[in-house]
C-alpha cells in the first residue's frame, strides 16, 4: 500500500472537521468509537444518491408487479436485484422494459447453486473438512429455493439504473418462458442457457446449439459436469512450492 500524500491527509482532516462541526450543530454527535478511529471517511452523499435511485426503481417495479416480487436486494452503486417466480418471468421483464424504460438488454444466463462435487480445487484451509458430507446449498442475493436460477440483467440508459431479475427453475423439470417477445436480444442468450445448463425455454423459435458442436452430450456449465483433464491431472496452480524471497521454510 502506498502512503497517502500529506496534503491530501490534511484536506481529508479539514473536511472531516467541517462535517463534524455541521453535524454537531444539527444534532448531538454520537460517540461511536469507529468515527473517532477511522482515518479517512467515505463520503456519504454518493451512497445515499444511488440508494434513492435504486429504491425508486424498486418502488416502480413493486407498483407494477406487487406480490410477484418475492425478494429484492439493493447494492448501493451497483444495482437492484429482484426475484420472481418462474411464471412471472415475462411479466417482470415487461414491467422493467415499460415502466422503468430498461431498453437495453444486457445478458441472460442461469446460475447453478449446487456446490461442486469435485471441491473447489484450491488449497484453502476451509476446504479441509473432516466429514465428506455434501455441503449445503447456499444462495446469493435475494435467496432462492431451487438448484437452477434464471437471471437476466436489463439496463436503462436514460435513468441509469440496472435491474437483475432472477427466477427459480423447478428442480424436476426446469422450464421457463422465453423473453424474445419482450427483448429480441435474448434469443442467443437463451440458446446458450439451453445448451449449457439443460433447461427448457418455452416457445423459443430456434433451439439449436450455439457454442457447442453438434452431437455434444451433456451440459458443460452444470456443476456436476466433470472436466476430464482435471480429473486426470490436478490443477497445477494449487501450491506454491517455491518459497517467497526472504521467507524461511
Amino acid at each position, binding site marked *: 500500500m502506498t502512503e497517502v500524500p500529506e496534503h491530501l491527509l490534511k484536506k481529508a482532516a479539514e473536511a472531516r472537521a467541517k462535517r463534524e462541526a455541521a453535524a454537531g450543530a444539527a444534532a448531538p454527535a454520537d460517540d461511536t468509537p469507529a468515527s473517532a478511529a477511522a482515518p479517512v471517511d467515505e463520503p456519504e452523499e454518493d451512497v445515499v444518491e444511488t440508494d434513492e435511485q435504486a429504491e425508486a426503481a424498486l418502488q416502480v417495479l413493486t407498483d407494477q408487479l406487487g406480490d410477484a416480487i418475492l425478494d429484492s436486494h439493493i447494492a448501493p452503486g451497483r444495482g437492484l436485484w429482484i426475484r420472481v417466480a418462474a411464471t412471472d418471468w415475462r411479466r417482470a421483464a415487461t414491467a422493467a422494459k415499460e415502466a422503468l424504460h430498461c431498453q437495453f438488454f444486457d445478458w441472460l444466463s442461469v446460475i447453478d447453486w449446487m456446490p461442486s462435487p469435485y471441491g473447489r480445487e484450491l488449497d484453502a484451509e476451509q476446504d479441509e473438512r473432516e466429514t465428506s458430507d455434501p455441503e449445503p446449498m447456499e444462495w446469493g442475493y435475494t435467496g432462492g429455493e431451487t438448484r437452477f436460477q434464471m437471471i437476466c440483467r436489463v439496463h436503462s440508459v436514460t435513468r441509469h439504473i440496472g435491474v437483475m431479475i432472477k427466477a427459480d427453475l423447478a428442480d424436476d423439470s426446469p422450464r421457463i418462458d422465453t423473453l424474445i417477445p419482450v427483448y429480441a436480444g435474448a434469443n442467443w442468450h437463451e440458446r446458450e442457457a439451453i445448451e449449457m445448463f439443460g433447461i427448457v425455454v418455452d416457445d423459443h423459435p430456434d433451439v439449436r446449439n450455439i*457454442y*457447442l*458442436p453438434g452431437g*455434444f452430450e451433456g451440459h*458443460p456449465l452444470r456443476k456436476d*459436469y466433470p*472436466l476430464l*483433464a482435471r480429473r486426470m491431472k490436478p*490443477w497445477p496452480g494449487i501450491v506454491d512450492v517455491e518459497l517467497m524471497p526472504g521467507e524461511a521454510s
Partner: protein
Amino acid sequence: MGLVESGKLPKPLTKLLNMSRKYSMWVYQWGLACCAIEMGAAFASPRYDVMRLGVIPLPASPRQADFVVVSGTVTDKMAPAVRRLWEQMPDPKYVISMGSCANCGGPYWDSYSVTKGVDQIIPVDVYVPGCPPRPEALLEGIVLLQERILHEDMAERWKGDPIVVQ
C-alpha cells in the same frame, strides 16, 4: 521427377533444390484466436516482416499454400474444418503450431471444448511456444522450418507412405 524419387540425385543438387524451395514458400495463416494478432504482426507489418525470409503470406486458397501456421485455440467445433483444410493442401506441406493453445491446449487444457493441441489432428513440424509468442519467435520458428527443409531428403519424402484422404 524420376531422379528425385529414385534417390539418384546428387547431394549438392538436392541441397540446391531444397534451398530454392525453402526461400519460396507461400504460408497459409489460420488465425483462430489472439495468436492471430501476433501472426498478423509478423506477416503483415513492416517491422517484423516475414517476406525478407522469402515467405509470402496470404495465399488465395489452401491449395496454393506450402505451409500453414495454426495460431490460436483449436476448439472441438473447429477441428474438422482444420483437418479438411490441411488435407486440401498439396504436398510437400508443413505445419507450424503457434502458441500454447495450438501446441497443447495451453491455458485451456482443462476445457470441455478445446482440442488439446492441434497435433491431435494434423502432424506438426515446428512448435512455437508462447502465449502469445512474439513475432520474432514466430519468425525463428519459420527459420527453423526452413533449416529443416534444407536438410530434407526429398527421395524419402517422395517414397513415403501415400496420403489417403478419407
